[in-house]
C-alpha cells in the first residue's frame, strides 16, 4: 500500500520501499486501483465518508483473505487498517496480515541487520523520529535498531523522543499555531543533537517537519526509513 502522501508527493519513498522489499526477495504487487485507506475523514469524525473509502480499500487489498500480506511505509496507514477499521466496522475482522514496513522487515522477516553502507563521503550524523502511530502498533525502537546496523551513519538519541511532531493530519490546518508550535519544539530538540539528517518512518511527520525546516532554510536532510535502507548498499 503506497499511502496518499507517497502517491501525491513522495513517490521516491514508495520506490525505495519496493526496492528494499525486492532486495530481500519479496514479490511485490501494486494494485493500481488503490486510493486512500480512509484515515483522513476517520480522524476528522466523518466516519460515513471514511467507511466508503475504507470499504474500497478492503476490497482492493483483499483484507478478508488471510493469505494477503499488506505492507505500507506508514505506521499511520497500518494503524488505520488494524485499529481504525475495528472501530469503523465493529462486526468485521481483519484477516489479512497488515504490517508497517519496518515491522514487516524486523518482526515478520526477522531481519535484524542491514548490511550496507550509506553512499556518502563522510559518516553522517542522524536522528530518528518515532512516528506516533507506532505506539498503538507497539513498534518500539525496532526502526532505530535496524538502522543502527547501517554503516556510515552516526545515530544520536533524540531528547523527548515521545513528543509528537505536531502534524496530526487536518489538525495542522485547523490548529496551525499549535501544530507549528509543536513542530518547532521537535526541531529544537533535533537541533540540540547537531544532526545533519532526520529520519522517520512516516511521511506525515516528515512532510510537516520538512515544511518547517525549509522555511528556516535549514540544511538538515529529511529521509524516510525506506530511503535510508535503499540507499545503503
Amino acid at each position, binding site marked *: 500500500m503506497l499511502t496518499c502522501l507517497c502517491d501525491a508527493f513522495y513517490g521516491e519513498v514508495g520506490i525505495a520501499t519496493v526496492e528494499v522489499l525486492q532486495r530481500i526477495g519479496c514479490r511485490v504487487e501494486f494494485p493500481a486501483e488503490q486510493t486512500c485507506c480512509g484515515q483522513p475523514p476517520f480522524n476528522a469524525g466523518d466516519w460515513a465518508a471514511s467507511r466508503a473509502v475504507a470499504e474500497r480499500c478492503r476490497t482492493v487489498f483483499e483484507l478478508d483473505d488471510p493469505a494477503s500480506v499488506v505492507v505500507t511505509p506508514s505506521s499511520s496507514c497500518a494503524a488505520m487498517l488494524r485499529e481504525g477499521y475495528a472501530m469503523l466496522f465493529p462486526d468485521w475482522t481483519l484477516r489479512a496480515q497488515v504490517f508497517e514496513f519496518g515491522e514487516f522487515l524486523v518482526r515478520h522477516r526477522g531481519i535484524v541487520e542491514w548490511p550496507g553502507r550509506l553512499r556518502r563521503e563522510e559518516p553522517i550524523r542522524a536522528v530518528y523520529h518515532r512516528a506516533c502511530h507506532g505506539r498503538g502498533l507497539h513498534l518500539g525502537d525496532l526502526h532505530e535498531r535496524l538502522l543502527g546496523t547501517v554503516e556510515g551513519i552516526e545515530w544520536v538519541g533524540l531528547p523527548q523522543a*515521545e513528543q509528537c511532531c505536531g502534524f496530526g493530519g487536518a489538525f495542522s490546518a485547523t490548529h496551525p*499555531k499549535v501544530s507549528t508550535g509543536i513542530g518547532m519544539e521537535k526541531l529544537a530538540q533535533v537541533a540540540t543533537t547537531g544532526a545533519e539528517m532526520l529520519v522517520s518512518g512516516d511521511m506525515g511527520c516528515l512532510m510537516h517537519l520538512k515544511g518547517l525546516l525549509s522555511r528556516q532554510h535549514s540544511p538538515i536532510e529529511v529521509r524516510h526509513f525506506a530511503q535510508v535502507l535503499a540507499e545503503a548498499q
Partner: protein
Amino acid sequence: MSVPKVEAFARALRGEVVTSVRTASAAKVASRVSTLGEAFDDIESARTEAARIKDEVLDRLRDLLLEFEARATARRIQVHWASDAAEANRVVLEICRRVAEPGAIVAKAKSMATEEIGLNSALEGAGFRPIETDLGEYVVQIDGDHPSHIVTPIIHKNRVDVARSFVREGLGPYTEDPAELTMQARAKLRDVFRQASVGVSGANFLIAETGRIVLVENEGNNRFSTTAPRVHIAVAGIEKLLPSERELPLFLKLLAGSATGQRLTTYVHLISGPREANDPDGPEEVHVIFLDNGRTRVLEGRYREILRCIRCGACLNVCPVYRQVSGHAYRHVYSGPIGAVLAPALEGIDAIGDLAKASTLCGACEEVCPVKIPIPRMLLELRDEAARAGLGKRDIPWKRFATLAGSELLWRAGLTLLPIARKLPSALGREWAQKREMPMREGRSFREWWRERS
C-alpha cells in the same frame, strides 16, 4: 474558516506561559519515567492490573458504594449522596450552617471535585470564607484565576507572578525566592488552619471493605484541613472506590510516580472516622459526599473507561498540545487529554466537544496513563459523535474526498491536480503555509515508475 477555540487561545498566549508549562512538563515526564522504572519490575503489567481493578470497580460500582456506606457509617463517617453540583453544594452548606458561625473560615484542601461543583462560590454566596490552602490553589484563588493543571495548578505562572500577588495581598516583602514565597504562604495559612471551623477535601480513594478515606498530598495542608477543624467534609466522585486496601500499594505507587515522579507522596492519609473519645485532637464529624454529576451517565456510555482516571496529570505533562496551549484553553476544570474526554463526557459534546479536535492523536497520553485509558480512541469517538450530531462546521468536504477516493481515475486526476491546487488560495492552505512550505512532488512519481518497469 473560523478559528477553533483552543487554537485561538494558543495564539493569544504569552510566550512565558508556554515556557513555564513546557519546562515543568518535560521535567515531570523525565522523573516519571525514572521513578516508575525503579518502583516496578514491570510497569506494563502494573498498569494493566490497575486498569483491571478499576474496571472491576466500575462493574461493581453500586455494590461497592453500598458496602462503603455501610462500613463508613459504622465508623461514624456520615455518607451523603449528591446527584449534581447543586445538591453537593447544598449538603456542604447545610453542614456549614449547622456547625459554623456566619462568615466562618472554611479550609479547602486541593480537590478537583470541589472545583467541578464550584463549591467556593457557593460558600461565598452563603457568607462563608473558603480559603484554598494548597500553595498553588491559594495563588489561583487570590488571583481570581483558574487552575491550569489538575496536579500543579499554577504551572502557567512564574515566580515573578507569585511574588507580585503576595505583595499585593500583604503576605510579606517582595521576594522572588520560591522558598521565601513558600514561607510567606505558610505563615498566612497557619492562621487559616487554626481558625477554620470546617475543612473540605476531595478523596483520592475510598475503600469499600474498610470504609476509609484515603488522601494523598505533599504539602501537609490536606492533613491540616482534615484534622484541625471541628468538621471534615470530603467530596468525592462515585468512581473513586477501591475494593480493599490490598489494592492501595499499587495505586499509591502508580499515582505518586505518574503525578510527580515520587516513590510515594509525602503524606498518605488513611482516615478512619472522627476522633475517639480520648483522642487529643481530630475532627468531631467526618462526612463523605458522593458526587454523581453525570458520572452514572458516563458509566453507561462509550466513554466509560474515562472513569478509571486517578487524576495523576501524567497525560497533561506529556501532551504536546497541552504544552502549547496550557490548561485554560480547555475551559474546564479538567484540562489536557483527560479533560478533552471527561469534560464533554460530563457536560455533553455540544457544550465542549470541540476539545476532541484539538489533538494530533499522537497517543502519548494513553502510553503514560497508569490505568491505560484509551484516550485517543475516545477522542475519535467524540469526533464521530459530534459529526453525527451535526455539530461543528465541516472544515473539509469529506464526502467529496470519499467520491474522489472511490475511483482510481478520479483519484489519479486529483493527485495530478494537487501540486497545482497548492497554488490556489484556500483558507486551509493559507493557514498551513503561514510557517511551512507547502509540500511539492519530489522526485519521480511512483505510479509512473511502476508502470514503466512492469
